[in-house]
């Protein structure tokens, strides 16, 4: 099963349950008492999921490691490489920049 089919079946099942609840209003007391909540629940769920996604992404953006140390070490190693390569006879290309 492809991921698309997995999603379709998952959403299909949820949709079927929701349809069943909505249409069972006349003989189901629970549905009668919470009709609006059930009717709008898909929109509510999408909204809550959106908030969840947004907060997770923003949290991860703010906790994304900044590797200052790695950059400093690399700069030192570039220097080291240039010196040692020159000793080994490597001719660096003149850069016009």
């Amino acid at each position, binding site marked *: 099963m492809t*991921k*698309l089919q997995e999603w379709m079946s998952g959403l299909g099942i949820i949709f079927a349950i929701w349809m069943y609840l909505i249409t069972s209003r006349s003989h189901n007391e629970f549905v009668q008492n919470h009709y609006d909540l059930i009717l709008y629940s898909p929109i509510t769920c999408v909204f809550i999921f959106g908030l969840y996604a947004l907060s*997770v992404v923003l949290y991860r953006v703010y906790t*994304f490691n*900044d*590797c200052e140390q*790695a950059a400093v070490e690399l700069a030192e190693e570039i220097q080291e*490489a240039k010196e040692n390569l020159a000793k080994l006879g490597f001719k660096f290309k003149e850069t016009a920049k």
Partner: protein
Amino acid sequence: MSASGTNSKNKYSILLPTYNEVENLPIIIYLIVKYMSKSGYDHEIIVIDDGSPDGTLEAAKQLQNIYGKDKIVLRPREKKLGLGTAYIHGIQHATGNFIVIMDADLSHHPKAIADFIKKQQEKDYDVVSGTRYIGGGGVYGWDFKRKLVSRGANFLTQLLLRPGASDLTGSFRLYKKDVLETLIKSCVSKGYVFQMEMIIRARQLNYTIGEVPITFVDRLYGESKLGGTEIIQFVRALLYLFATT
């Protein structure tokens, strides 16, 4: 399986695709040799240069004279034919049983290769992937917008594809040679989304994937070859893989 017992038989072929990397290539090769000699793993470096006009190939030839023909292998091509085929071209000449793929622009640090190898040996993983998103991994030189795009795209990919690996678009990885060959054959996309497809196919083919945190330092020299069509390519690949895998 003892680590020392397998070390003696294993050889690691490190693929370096280059396009206009004349400043970076000598340094990355110096660092690879430095760290690989330190950790003592048998290795070779395969440079696949696509006719860079900046003289990358001449620099590579100088390096070959310094380090020897068995250490530095040159597999140049006439013109810029893209990354995916560069890897295929590179492995055809690889003598190692493991392949390491990394960028030549110094954003991937060669010291991580030894960590990849240790991780691979822990559970005999088929693939070991470097990741910027977990543990001590991270990036340097990225602004808010770039981090947001990266994290957002990653969240969406994890949600839709559940790949079993945290970093899909990174390209610093270790593969068993035959696994890489199988994966490349099963991939249809071109360009950089190819990296993403490789991991998804790996999951689809039930290969095991290990992960090692890496630091990614943005290139200092030269330019990135990937333009503004990146996001469109990414979305297309995501939807394609969502519908077909």
